[in-house]
């Protein structure tokens, strides 16, 4: 009896687990990645979908076989024992060939998506924006008309006087026209070169819609590049545990048309 119950249960659980994945919804909430707004994200989504199909089928197959065998042999009156046809040899062979091939194929395919984000540097005409993560806010900096960023002096950081980056405009000419913002405003369809540094501890930059996530590592200057394709406002959240305000560390990504962006930038520098 227990065997039969287990068999039914495991199959019901397997099907029930798959339903939200197929229907994209669970208890009324959408449980699927939001619409992609980047040029590189489609490849990541495709990779995710393909992995979902392969992993999902393996999951269902294994749970079903487990259910069937336990239904058939669980708690039965002791009868003659049988061995699985072919024994261990074919199972090992199947695992090595099928799973090995699957793993290599997925690994190789996924490399392309990864490479698009990480293996090429940002193009020369990408818009450079600096982002600083600190407990518990992001600040963004644009180079201003001179195209040069002022030097950062950590000891000069003074949030009370809005000197979030620790600039020294008195002695540092390029710093004078730098534009600082609490919101990441970018033009659509233009490559952005994000230069990342952390002020205090580790943080992370995550925008679901952009399919972008990258840690900030104190002491390391990291860079990231992406192109957003859709005008709108999206949330940037911190995904690396950074302290008590971690859950509340966020900023907005505001994607504008090039015209609107130019206007915004001009308004900022006045």
């Amino acid at each position, binding site marked *: 009896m*227990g*065997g039969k119950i*287990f068999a039914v*249960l*495991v199959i019901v659980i397997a099907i029930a*687990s798959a339903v*939200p994945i197929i229907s994209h919804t669970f*208890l009324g*909430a959408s*449980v699927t*990645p*939001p619409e992609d707004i980047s040029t590189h994200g489609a490849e*990541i989504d495709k*990779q*995710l979908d393909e992995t*979902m199909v392969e*992993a999902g089928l393996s999951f269902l197959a*294994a*749970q079903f076989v*487990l259910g069937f065998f*336990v239904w058939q*042999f669980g708690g039965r009156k*002791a009868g003659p*024992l049988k061995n*699985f046809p072919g024994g*261990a040899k074919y*199972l*090992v062979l*199947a695992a*090595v060939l099928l799973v090995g091939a*699957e*793993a*290599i194929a*997925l*690994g190789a395919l*996924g490399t392309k998506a990864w490479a698009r*984000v*990480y*293996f090429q540097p940002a193009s020369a005409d990408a818009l450079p924006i600096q982002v600083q993560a600190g*407990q518990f806010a992001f600040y963004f900096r644009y180079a201003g008309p001179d195209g040069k960023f002022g030097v950062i002096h950590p*000891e000069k*950081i003074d949030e009370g006087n809005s000197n979030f980056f620790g600039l020294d405009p008195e002695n540092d000419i390029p710093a004078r026209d730098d534009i600082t913002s609490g919101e990441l405003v970018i033009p659509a369809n233009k490559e952005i070169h994000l230069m990342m540094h952390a*002020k205090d*501890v*580790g943080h*992370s930059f*995550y925008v*679901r819609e952009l399919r972008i*996530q*990258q840690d900030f*590592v*104190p*002491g390391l200057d990291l860079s990231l590049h992406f192109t957003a394709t859709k005008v709108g406002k999206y*949330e940037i959240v911190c*995904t690396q545990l950074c*302290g*008590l*305000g*971690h*859950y509340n560390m966020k900023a907005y990504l505001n994607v504008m048309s090039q015209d609107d962006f130019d206007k915004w930038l001009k308004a900022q520098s006045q």
Partner: protein
Amino acid sequence: MSEASPHAVHHAAPTGFIRKYVFSLDHKIIGLQYYALALVAVVTGMMLSWLMRIHLIAPNWPIPGLQFLSKVGAPGGVMTPEYYLSLMTMHGTLMVFFVLTNAPFAAFGNYFLPLQIGAEDMAFPRFNMMSFWTTFIAFCILISAFFVGDGPPLAGWTAYAPLSAVGKDSGPGEGLGQTLWALSIFVFCIASLLGALNFIATTLDLRTKGMTLARMPIVTWAWFITSCIALLAFAVLMPACLLLILDRVGGTSFFIPSGLNISDHIQPHQGGSPLLWQHLFWFFGHPEVYIAILPAIGIVSHILINSMRKPMLSNKVIIYCMMGIGFLSYMVWGHHMFLSGMNPFSALVFSFPTLMITIPATIMTLIWLGSLYGSNLRINAASLFCLGFISMFVSGGVSGFFLAQPSIDIYLHATYFVVGHFHMVMGVAAIFGIFAGTYFWFPKMTGHMMNETWGRLHFWFTFIGTYCIFMPFHYLGLAGNVRRYSAFTDDFLVPLLPVHKFITYSALFTGAAQLIFLCNLIYSRFKGPQATANPWEATSLEWSTPSSPPPFDNFGGQHPVVYHDPYQYGVQSSTADYLMQTSPERAGETP
């Protein structure tokens, strides 16, 4: 120690209570002590998860009595965001170190490894006692963090630097609490190293006559392989913790770079690397996952064979797979760090062996499934938990396939998908192994049988409950729900609250269902029906001791002699359908 025979009793049977039950040299008592400690840790860890789950769905609801645990962390019973993180840190640390490492490996391993190889005790009984009591001290140090000034650390069980390294400036809990955490883990590492050495020496030196390596049960192999992994893994974490302590109290800068402005203070450190901590931690951290799961794989295989009344399709393949996993576990630590800022090319180097781990894991699953075919599978609480383990191992395993790929990790990293993945495969699956082992070995450990009806009820509730908790974690992750948040205030996270409510209710239910197990454990220990020496008609040496529990020297002054492979089931013999390893009889034809 006597040179004459490896089986000589190293110490006389104690008479006083203290030497018998407290500072005991007997591996069986030490095994039970580890089990009891793991039980205390798991109850504490589970309570913490309840508090976190309740806070997530009702952040402003005062939890009755919580203010007594921490006046600062939970004024009026309402948890602060930092206290949530502290509880999360303590939950992870307790569960990974004091439950998943202690119970399947140290507790069962201590009790049954010497029995299964026909030894009278561990190779170094004093070391053994020392390992347990050192672990106990580590546990006390960790728990004491609850009661210091600004509370337990909040940097997570991974304690990423510089958050964990710079001290008070980086937040509440990062004062003395974090130092105690690092000290506790440092001490824990010493204990685990001693234990692992002891297991290895015992396995290699104290096997009884006829017990060749090939005749060791799968679970003995699992403990042996785990010991080898533990020896290398804890040996890295221990110095890493020491460096972290030095950064915190000694003014060094191993993990802290220059120019950090934390809480308006320029930190007096320079030249360190936060990534160094991550590398050292995960070089331990990934093998640690297998330290938790390999003993469970061994336990489940061992019990399943007994329940199926026939050997696995191949014991050797399972043992080779465990070795393969152990070997690969040292080449994959970087998959925790795809987005950490290390060279993006190295992501591919770490991704490939990670994907390859799927191969031994799949082979083992197929061997288990294939072996079920044509068996006379007995259904009881122990075997149900083994079957549940296989189901969980598959469910938690396939999600690893996503996270092993750096491109997908860009989206899923640090989301609840990861939380679902590791809870299923190393948390729940390993705990199912512990439950299976408990139901199976309880008669040997106590001399009493556990109540079967309660055991089954416990399984049904736990099996359904854990799926209800951890499957939806994956859905949340796919929706991009970030982990380690004490509240979901972001616009895109608010619509996911119904899912969180469902998970919290499931967690409360499943946690409460564990009372069935706890009651069964305590009741059966005293009132359970008397167990015979071999109630499951098993073949391995732990069942050939003259009594349950075994006498002090395990085999009553005899040295068992082994004649067979460990799993002579489904054979024609004078006893029934099995032959014990100690039976000189030759089996009739196997079907």
